[in-house]
């Protein structure tokens, strides 16, 4: 069920009415779980079972981890929980990739063919990561901890219900933001209408839908021409502009989606973590990863990079850890070589930056900062090519065309990308001004009314969210 569809609007409204209905207030969690299951089953009903099994096993294992007193047993439970989530993720997400490899070698008869038929459950990368977060958080902080991250209810039924709710909560179920257990569980309680900041939620929703439906969906119809073989006949300027347009599109698409998820969750009284913080103003690659898909990068940092040793090991080990994290981060996005290359590319940029930082110190002034932002943005944008073009050969061909094509410019493409980049430019500029002047000039009713007007009258043809495929 897409966030920008009528069935979704109906689901949100019906859920909202039942949720805040006085007579049903003690069933709030049941109502949200039911809505979440309807939301998930709408697209892939048969895969609901997998979601349910995954959430149930995470509930059982996390309960055992939290209340087990024997250290070894606790460790065994938590390792089993993490392994279970990783096996589910690997089997459903990466089987087709293994299938292709086996088919290539033609060594195992029908096995490769079978693996290619395994369906990809929507949101599996997100809910398995949340399951891991639950098990690990409770391993780190159990019922004996002096300052527990959060407390688990002794009543297993209650914990089971909370966990099903945590894993399946529909605003964040299929594309995040990835919520960590310690961020979510403490919020589970009865909610009252009078406590909800509807104005804030409404504004976040307008901004999210504007980014997705007006900016991303309209740019999608321009960046279509980046696909093979169409790009071969376009001029270098057009190809660079398209790449720039795709960079704006992927930001608007995912940041828009995240804002919608945050806004919807807010309507039910839940706070989801911020997922984007104006990533394209980053002055370094490491800063970029504190601003882009924050819930994933912070998850990888907390549950992978730090356990690997983080910064507390030798320089070489740090470089290796960064590369491992980025390669796995790339692989998390999808079962294709291009995602691994994308992860490796970012790993390389981060390691190079870290290495350079110990030898070269750049001055910090406006001009230098602008150069840094431009440099980081350009290389990040170049990397998105690996997202847009699924075949690595096509990426190389695109780069070759970009360097050598001299055909006529597609003026209409250049112009439309320019038009749709303007709101994003203003959005970023306003943020930069708001930092120095401490005033948000865009936060007024007239601006939000215009955005609302444009959502209704100037939306692009509806497209799936890019991050749904992950």
């Amino acid at each position, binding site marked *: 069920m897409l966030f920008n569809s*009528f069935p979704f609007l109906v689901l949100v409204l019906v859920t909202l*009415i039942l949720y*805040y*209905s*006085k007579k049903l207030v003690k069933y709030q969690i049941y109502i949200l779980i039911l809505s979440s299951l309807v939301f998930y089953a709408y697209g892939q009903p048969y895969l609901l079972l997998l979601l349910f099994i995954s959430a149930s096993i995470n509930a059982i294992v996390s309960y055992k981890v939290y209340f087990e007193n024997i250290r070894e047993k606790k460790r065994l439970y938590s390792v089993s929980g993490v392994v279970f989530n990783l096996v589910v993720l690997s089997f459903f997400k990466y089987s087709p990739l293994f299938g292709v490899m086996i088919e290539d070698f033609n060594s195992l008869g029908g096995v490769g063919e079978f693996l290619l038929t395994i369906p990809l459950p929507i949101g599996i990368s997100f809910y398995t990561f949340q399951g891991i977060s639950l098990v690990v958080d409770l391993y780190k902080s159990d019922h004996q901890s002096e300052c527990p991250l959060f407390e688990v209810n002794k009543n297993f039924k209650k914990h089971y219900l909370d966990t099903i709710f945590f894993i399946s909560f529909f605003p964040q179920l299929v594309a995040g933001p990835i919520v960590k257990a310690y961020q979510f569980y403490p919020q589970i309680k009865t909610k009252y*209408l*009078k406590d*909800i*900041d*509807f*104005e804030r939620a*409404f*504004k976040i929703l*307008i901004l999210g839908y504007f980014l997705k439906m007006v900016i991303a969906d*309209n740019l999608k*119809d*321009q960046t*279509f021409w980046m696909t093979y*073989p169409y790009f*071969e*006949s376009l001029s270098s300027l057009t190809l660079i502009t398209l790449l720039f347009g795709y960079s704006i599109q992927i930001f608007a698409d995912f940041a828009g989606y995240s804002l919608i998820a945050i806004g919807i969750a807010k309507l039910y009284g839940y706070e989801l973590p911020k997922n984007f913080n104006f990533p394209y103003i980053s002055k370094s690659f490491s800063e970029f990863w504190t601003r882009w898909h924050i819930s994933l990068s912070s998850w990888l940092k907390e549950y992978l990079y730090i356990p690997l040793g983080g910064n507390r090991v030798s320089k070489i080990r740090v470089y290796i850890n960064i590369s491992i994290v980025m390669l796995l981060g790339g692989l998390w996005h999808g079962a294709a070589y291009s995602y691994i290359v994308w992860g490796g590319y970012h790993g390389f940029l981060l390691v190079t930056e870290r290495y350079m930082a110990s030898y070269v110190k750049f001055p910090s002034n406006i001009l230098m900062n602008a150069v840094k932002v431009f440099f980081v943005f350009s290389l990040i944008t170049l990397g998105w090519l690996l997202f847009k073009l699924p075949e690595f050969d096509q990426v190389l061909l695109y780069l070759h065309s970009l360097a050598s094509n001299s*055909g*006529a410019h597609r*003026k*209409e493409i250049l*112009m*439309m990308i320019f*038009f749709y980049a303007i709101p994003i430019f203003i959005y970023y500029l306003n943020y930069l001004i708001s930092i120095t002047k401490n005033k948000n000039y865009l936060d007024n*009713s*007239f601006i*939000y*009314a*215009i955005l*609302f*007007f*444009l959502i*209704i*009258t*100037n939306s692009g*043809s*509806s497209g799936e969210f890019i991050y749904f495929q992950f």
Partner: protein
Amino acid sequence: MNLSIFNFNKIYRIVIIFVVLFIFYNVYLIVQKPNVTMLQNQWQNNYSFAQDFIYDNKAKNIIVGSSMAARIQNKFLPKNYYNLSFSGGSVLTGLEIIKRSGFIPKNIYIENNIIFRHEDNKLLNILFYPFLWEIKKYVPSLREKYQPLNLIISKIKGAYGKTHDELLKISRDNNIYDLSMKRQQKNYDKNLKQYDIKLKQLKNLVKYFEVQGTKITFFEMPIDINLAKSIKAKEQRNVIKVNFKNNWMRLPDNDEYTTTDGIHLIYKSAYEYSDEFLKLTRRVNE
């Protein structure tokens, strides 16, 4: 439960301003009827052509086809003709739109170059989304054509797009032609594949219109001569001739026209062929 509570106050302001803007814009569109000459992309063009047909234009002669027939632009045709061919679209999509709109034309001209391409369900679902498609009849701002940005770019003279005379002067880019012809030749050298379901759909739609008195005529757009003689083109022609006893327009003299990529006419040829097409329709209908 009382939903009308204190913390909705600031939302009201946004909604009221929105409603005022929305009403004002629709009144402007209805009263002023602005001329939209530019659209943002080919998909929007498709929506726009289709919505113009559904809500406004009810020409007696309708052309349906793919991007090849879409080269016959509506501006080349008299008012009693309407081209419902789409870039990336298909004959089945065009026929389905006419059927769902409830209109019965006098003549339908079916392009036979790419006849077994599946219908575009996404386009059909958007065009005929329950209730919304009927609301769009009375609220023009909800139609793709009247997006505010289309009005702006239509006002910017020469921002993009060329005049008719400029377009007539454009010749073929041989690099693009050579690149594309390699792919087209490969594609046209293959046999037709899995067309049974589409053929059945086409038969049903043709029957639906014939029963109601519409005359169906098949035609082919000029393409590169080598492709016109290819295995696939011949096979396709044969399948249609065997399965339909309808009229055919005389096949075009492919040598007289130039394509950009082997299958799509350059502007000048499209303009010239449109004239020829009209002459041929008159001959068929005599």
